[in-house]
């Protein structure tokens, strides 16, 4: 018995009816469509000129910088966006090609290198490489920087409505806020966490005193239980809307990225809100995400890509991103251009003590991924 069997009963009258009542409007629409398609053909052809394709995080480059680069290279920069490394890798696994540059986080760089998906860099084409702070050049995922050039970094931390938290007498700098019912009681329905298994587990693992890269399944299970216990107090899983919700005052505590929190704090200030949005790195430690520019093998224009990378290594251009979104900056030459209140913010540029408590995530193998995925389903369902 096929599913088709249900259809003749009802789809038929229903769907013909639907067509009949709309068709004339759409007849005209079809004519117009043709005209529009024809008129837009030149626009589509414009793509055939020099184009650099960038696969980047959303809002991760300043429009001014882009405009200047387009002017210098006489080319167009086209961007596609992702909001999660897993999503980016999944899209590449699903056959996405044609990207000259991708800006993945360390663990995803590691995966891409192991996949042999990246093109080695021609260091001769990157005269500004020396601008980089040497501290960021010995990362686990690409020790000799054969493939990757550090772009910017963020810390996964807590953003909060400072006015509310102070009024409630709550601390700012501990994951306990996110996981301990005694704090959460006062925040019920006002908390969001990242919709990312790795990030949320990392926060829970750090809070429990384990490494964010702990592979012990019993530790994972403890982290899962901690999350499930706290979940009833949370409003939603959110990877980006927390920026807006913090600004509006709907959400008082959000687990998210330092650069997003910076934007939320700025927006709240600009909108003249009666409260202040703040953010700080929990004392138990957190995840540091170092995003690097890499050349994807499928990209047709490595020449333009290298020019772009060198352009971004310029201190002034690199600082522009930091000033716009409040991301950490691995470029020593950029520091002089960065506004002091960002440069002095320890939740954006941690001091050496803070750096010791930060960890970069490592990639999981397929069995670990499946176990984590199952735990994630459990977390979502309970």
């Amino acid at each position: 018995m096929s599913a088709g069997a249900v259809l003749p009963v009802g789809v038929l009258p229903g769907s013909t009816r639907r067509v009949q009542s709309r068709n004339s409007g759409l007849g005209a629409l079809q004519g117009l469509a043709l005209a529009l398609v024809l008129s837009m053909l030149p626009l589509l052809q414009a793509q055939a000129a020099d184009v650099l394709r960038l696969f980047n995080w959303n809002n991760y480059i300043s429009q001014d910088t882009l405009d200047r680069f387009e002017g210098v290279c006489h080319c167009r920069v086209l961007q596609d966006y992702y909001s999660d490394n897993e999503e980016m890798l999944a899209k590449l696994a699903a056959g996405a090609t044609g990207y000259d540059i991708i800006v993945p986080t360390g663990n995803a760089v590691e995966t891409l290198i192991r996949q042999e998906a990246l093109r080695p860099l021609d260091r001769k084409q990157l005269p500004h490489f020396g601008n980089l702070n040497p501290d960021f050049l010995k990362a686990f995922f690409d020790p000799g920087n054969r493939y990757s050039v550090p772009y910017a970094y963020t810390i996964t931390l807590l953003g909060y409505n400072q006015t509310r938290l102070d009024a409630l007498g709550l601390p700012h700098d501990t994951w306990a806020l996110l996981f301990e019912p005694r704090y959460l009681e006062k925040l019920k329905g006002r908390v969001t966490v990242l919709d990312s298994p790795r990030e949320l587990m990392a926060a829970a693992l750090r809070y429990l005193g384990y490494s964010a890269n702990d592979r012990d399944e019993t530790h994972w299970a403890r982290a899962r239980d901690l999350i499930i216990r706290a979940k009833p107090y949370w409003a939603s899983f959110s990877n980006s809307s927390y920026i807006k919700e913090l600004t509006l005052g709907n959400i008082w505590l959000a687990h998210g990225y330092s650069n997003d929190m910076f934007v939320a704090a700025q927006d709240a200030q600009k909108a003249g809100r009666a409260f202040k949005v703040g953010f700080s790195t929990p004392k138990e430690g957190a995840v540091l995400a170092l995003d690097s520019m890499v050349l994807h093998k499928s990209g047709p224009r490595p020449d333009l890509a290298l020019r772009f990378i060198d352009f971004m290594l310029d201190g002034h251009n690199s600082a522009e991103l930091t000033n716009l979104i409040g991301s950490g900056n691995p470029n020593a030459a950029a520091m002089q251009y960065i506004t002091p209140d960002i440069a002095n913010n320890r939740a954006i540029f941690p001091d050496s003590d803070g750096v010791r408590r930060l960890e970069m995530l490592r990639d999981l193998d397929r069995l670990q991924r499946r176990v984590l995925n199952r735990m994630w389903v459990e977390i979502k369902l309970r």
Partner: protein
Amino acid sequence: MRDFQTSGGLLRALHPATLTRWLVSGPPTAFMLLFFLAPSLIMVLASFRFPGAFGGLAPLIGAGRAGEDTGLTLENYQFFFSDWLYAEIFVKSLVVALVSTLTCLVMAYPLALLIARSPKRHRDLMVLLVILPFASNFLIRVYALMILLGPQQALASAVNGLLALFGVAPVNLLFSTFAVIVGMVYVHLPFMVLPLYTNLEKHDPSLLDAAQDLGANGWQRFWRVTFPLSLPGIFSGSALVFIPVLGMFAIPDLLGGTRDILIGNLIKDQFLGTRDWPFGSMLSIMLTLVVLGLAGFAARLGRRDRNEET
């Protein structure tokens, strides 16, 4: 089409009726075999295989990379059946689909009835008004609900004001199972109204007159005459709502809270999140089986219903 006639010398060898049959049914059959049946079978195959070393699927043809297993396995199914967790998601999705379908029915029935009993010249306009929101993309309609259910809006204030009167703590309308169901209903409502209306419109009003003459009151006339006659419309409308709701992932994604994960989200995550294609394929096969089972059930109900009528 001149070729058709001039090349007749060659084609006369075939019986013309057979030839026409092949010419007409051949191209669509070939297309659907290639782009519907073949992918479906590949998906069945994929559900018995291992993921690739870096996610996705181990290559179907030829040797994989080092450490990649290209054999067949029941591992994916074992993982599914190893405990109740995944079955629970299916049950949950079925419940959400059922509630959404019933809500649609309760809302659509009076409307369809009213349209069917309105003067002929008004009916087209009334139907058009049901369809018109369909002219906007479903994501736009979901987005509209996101605004409307947001905590700043009058609706949330009104509901929470009312709850406060009874001493109940304020609730979030958005990002909740409630929002997911409202979204499902909002997006699928016309699918319920239209088949119901097409069915109700065909009813012979003299039946109701007869019932009235026999002394049936308004409610009895509805329950004994109109409702049984409209069952085929109810079944088809329900199928048109239930099945799409079952596979939906965008609505829980955008409107759901911390508990709202449905089969669709789970499948989507396997392909665009955790890169576990074999497990995703297995889940898709399970969903297919559920839908086929339901369709068979609905068809049987419909047939029994028709037999009773005759």
